[in-house]
């Protein structure tokens, strides 16, 4: 039988691939793409718990809908910023932190 654990293992896999993508990213856009993957893993987890074990399945699904909207807003703003910045210099490559020290 497929259980919530199956879905969590799948989501963990997606999340970790996304995390690796973030750690390994060479440009801001790649970070955004990898973060999208991580957020999708979160949604998968929540939907799976909602229809397997959650006490209030409908409320978890409603939250996932909200999360999707929020992620879209966040990504929209992120992409606008990246585009705006790239028009002025090459700093969409993360390497561009020349003037700011870590």
């Amino acid at each position, binding site marked *: 039988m497929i259980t919530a654990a199956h879905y969590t293992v799948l989501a963990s896999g997606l999340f970790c691939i996304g995390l690796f993508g973030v750690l390994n990213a060479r440009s801001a856009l790649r970070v955004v793409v990898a973060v999208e993957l991580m957020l999708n893993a979160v949604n998968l987890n929540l939907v799976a718990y909602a229809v397997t074990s959650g006490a209030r399945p409908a*409320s978890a699904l409603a939250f996932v809908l909200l999360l999707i909207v*929020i992620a879209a807003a966040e990504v929209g703003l*992120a992409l606008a910023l*990246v585009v705006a910045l790239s028009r002025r210099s090459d*700093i969409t490559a993360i390497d561009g932190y020349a003037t700011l020290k*870590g």
Partner: protein
Amino acid sequence: MNGTGHIVEVLAPQLIVVLTGALVLVADLVLPRREGEYPGRTWLAAASVTGLIAAGVAAFMAPANTSLLGGTLAVDGLSRFFDLVFIGIGIAVIGLSVDSVHRFTPWVAEYYALVLWCTAGNMMVALATGLFSLAVFLQLTSLPLIALLGLAKNDPRAREAALKYLLVVLVSTSLLLWGLSLVFGATGTDDMRGIAMAAAGGTLPALGAAGLVFMLAGFAFKVTSVPFQFWAPDVYEGAPPAVTAFLSVGSKLAGFALVVRFLALSIDALDISLAVGALAVASMTLGNLGALKQHNIRRLLAYSGIAQAGYILVGVAASSVTGLSAVLFYLAAYAIANALAFTVVVSFVDATGLDEVGDLSGLARRNPLAAFALAGALMSLAGLPLTVGFMAKFYVFMSAAESGLYWLTLAAVINAVLAFAYYLRIVWTLYVSDEEHAHVSMTRRHALVMVVGALGVVVIGLFPAPLLDAAHRAVTALIAG
């Protein structure tokens, strides 16, 4: 069941702040502009401050101790405490932006609207009793800040700061949400009290514990503590000074608002003293050691902020009523002192365009009020007697000792002494210098914010009892309720 009218009545403070933001945006369209001149921008600031004051009044009048919408939101002493603190921060930030915001961005109305909406988000974080609500509200505290950092024009440092902040927000948000989903899966609920009850019998499943660790990353980012503190120095240095002031106070307090509520609800259930204590020591030490070698005043204040987050975590680690009340007191003290320090920095950068510690030399003769205010703020952050910061450190350190965490108190005291070195070095620079420098002028509004802040530092330092009582009542009501 709650009707719409009831919801509007209870959430009036937050609603007023949100609507004021919208009003400012609309007013911007109708206010007249002349060639290169925009006399309406002062009115926009005045409208924003009026809205915040109205929200403060509403926070006093709103019915206390109400739980809304199936217990996902709670309006109580804690939320009122933070309402007033965040409104005060909002007013101070607008007050110190009004003379300079048009110099670093053409988007004045949008600037005020975003500050107001971010303030509303901060206030809402203090209401959330469910993790789902919390996740949504936390977004409202960071998304406007991304835009605020991004609106500085033609400044490569500000651009890089915005990009760095954006990436850290994206990553920390996904870590937080991942942790949230695991906690939800492990306990079947998003309610903080429910999670605490699941943990109470010592039965918090390993999955839930793993989730809490991931969520910690999201909190650490908000409060700039280890392990998510690394972004602060770059962003604080690169951002427009007024935005840095907002970021260093508002965002950090929002993070602690949720920590305090979550902990107050799970105080008997979770034993987090060791974990939080370790984070506290790491933050204090890293922050103080980092601050010692900084020459830029904004970078120095960023490291100082990391260390301050560590001191506050000492109170959190105590995980007792005394500890949490001390944390609330410390938060208010930190907000006043740090906002005051940044007011002077903003004023100084506006007047001179310089932001190195050495540039401040002899400020006492070049502008006595600014020097006095900065000295007061730094001595409060350092925790010298007669300031509010002293009382704050005293209460927090005592609470850790009271909970038997003597090692933590000792580490905190050592760190506080270490921190004297860099705080007092600046005070020395301000007052002891033979070099001749030009007079530094400042605007009346900056002077007003400085006077109010300096009075706050001294008066609350001398009479801490009312504030401490308020904090204590908020925490006990939360734990009993």
